[in-house]
């Protein structure tokens, strides 16, 4: 014969189990509903004192291999080099979001963006000045298009950790480069050429495919087949 207090204890335990099961289901559903935002690796934006403005981003789409120009309202710093860095960082961090159509690794992608005025001029060679001989460029310097170009050269220094985690493939790597070039071109028209470094060093390819050692022309890359 089961005593009364044992039956009461049993039903209390059953009730507790049912309650805990219900609470577990509730927590599970809550986690699933917030999973999309918790996958957001976007770095926390620094407080901006500038006004939000309409900025054109060249967004990549892996599904059809296209680039489309999309306007977003973003607050950006005014100084050109800092603005270029913020632009590229924002572009690549948006690609790290779970909803992205061109999924890229999260975390900080850009170490720095340097803007160099063109044309590039070689440092003065010693020896010639004392004789009063005008300094003419060497044949190699003269052949370099950067010694004749105008505008600015943007040197985008990417982080090695980000580049190492970039998905490997011709399409995805090409779209990343086109996306960066197109975004810089749309917002900083003074930039005429773009170069890429990784951790301050020249790198042969981004992730095994696209040539990262080239100097690229800054052009509109939206749906471009001839960048």
């Amino acid at each position, binding site marked *: 014969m089961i005593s009364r207090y044992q039956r009461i204890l049993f039903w209390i335990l059953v009730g507790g189990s049912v309650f805990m099961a219900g609470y577990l289901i509730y927590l599970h559903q809550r986690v699933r509903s917030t999973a999309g935002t918790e996958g957001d690796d976007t770095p926390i934006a620094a407080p901006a004192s500038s006004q939000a403005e309409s900025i054109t981003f060249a967004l990549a789409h*892996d*599904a*059809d*291999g296209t680039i489309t120009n999309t306007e977003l309202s973003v607050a950006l710093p005014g100084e050109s080099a800092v603005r270029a860095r913020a632009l590229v960082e924002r572009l690549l961090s948006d690609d790290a979001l779970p909803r992205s159509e061109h*999924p890229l690794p999260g975390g900080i992608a850009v170490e720095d963006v340097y803007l160099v005025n063109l044309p590039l001029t070689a440092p003065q060679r010693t020896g010639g000045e004392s004789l009063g001989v005008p300094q003419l460029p060497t044949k190699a310097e003269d052949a370099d298009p950067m010694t004749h170009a105008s505008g600015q050269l943007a040197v985008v220094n990417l982080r090695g950790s980000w580049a190492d985690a970039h*998905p*490997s*493939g*011709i*399409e*995805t790597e*090409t779209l990343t480069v086109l996306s960066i070039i197109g975004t810089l071109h749309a917002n900083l028209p003074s930039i005429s050429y773009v170069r890429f470094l990784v951790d301050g060093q020249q790198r*042969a*390819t981004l*992730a*095994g*495919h*696209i*040539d990262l050692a*080239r100097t*690229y022309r800054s052009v509109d890359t939206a749906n471009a*087949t*001839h*960048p």
Partner: protein
Amino acid sequence: MRWTKVAAAGITSATIWAVTAQMAVQTPAPAPPHPRPVIFLDPAHGGADGGAKVGDSVLEKAVTLELASRIRPLLSARGFDVRMTREGDPTPTPTTDQRAGLENQAHPAACIILHSAPTGTGVHLYTSALPEATTAATPPATSIVPWDEAQSAYIASSLRLSSEISTAFSRSQIAISSGRTWMPPLDNLLCPAVAIEIAPLNADGSKPPTDAGYQQRVAEAIAGAVLFWHGKADPTTGAAQ
């Protein structure tokens, strides 16, 4: 005439030898067989360079080699001399510069670089993004061609080859996206050249690049397109006739 001499003097072994020798000189030598056009297949990556991770435990280098092995007999059956930059998984693997050197030395009718990726859908078809050279298809022997811009003289014929391959994929109902890119060894090749990247056939990943049936469809589309393109192209320059 030697035959007259033979009839008059009777058949001696010396005369027979002389007649035979004379006939051998007078009979035109058979024309050398027309050399079969060379198609170079470049299964990308290999050795320590595995490329992208295409499946759970499959690397890009294995997929590209398997695909090349499917294309090779199909092209050979269509009368091409098919060569490959790597037959297996050699160590050390030739670099992209070495691969381009191998291909350029063979003066191929076309070069096809094979890649594979886990992202995107269908087949991604790329030609070099270099600007087209204004000179003739074959640069003069005296001009210096920058290594990174070697492909610029062949852009027009590469685009025609790409167009034929794109049409063949569309006919085979394989999703195709075409574009232009900068990548070694594509930019270093002195022949009509395309890079083909095979991605999952469907967006849901139900037919990955490792699928044998999918690979065979891709291989047949490429082989058919190359044959059709070569029929229309000048075999010496790759330019359309």
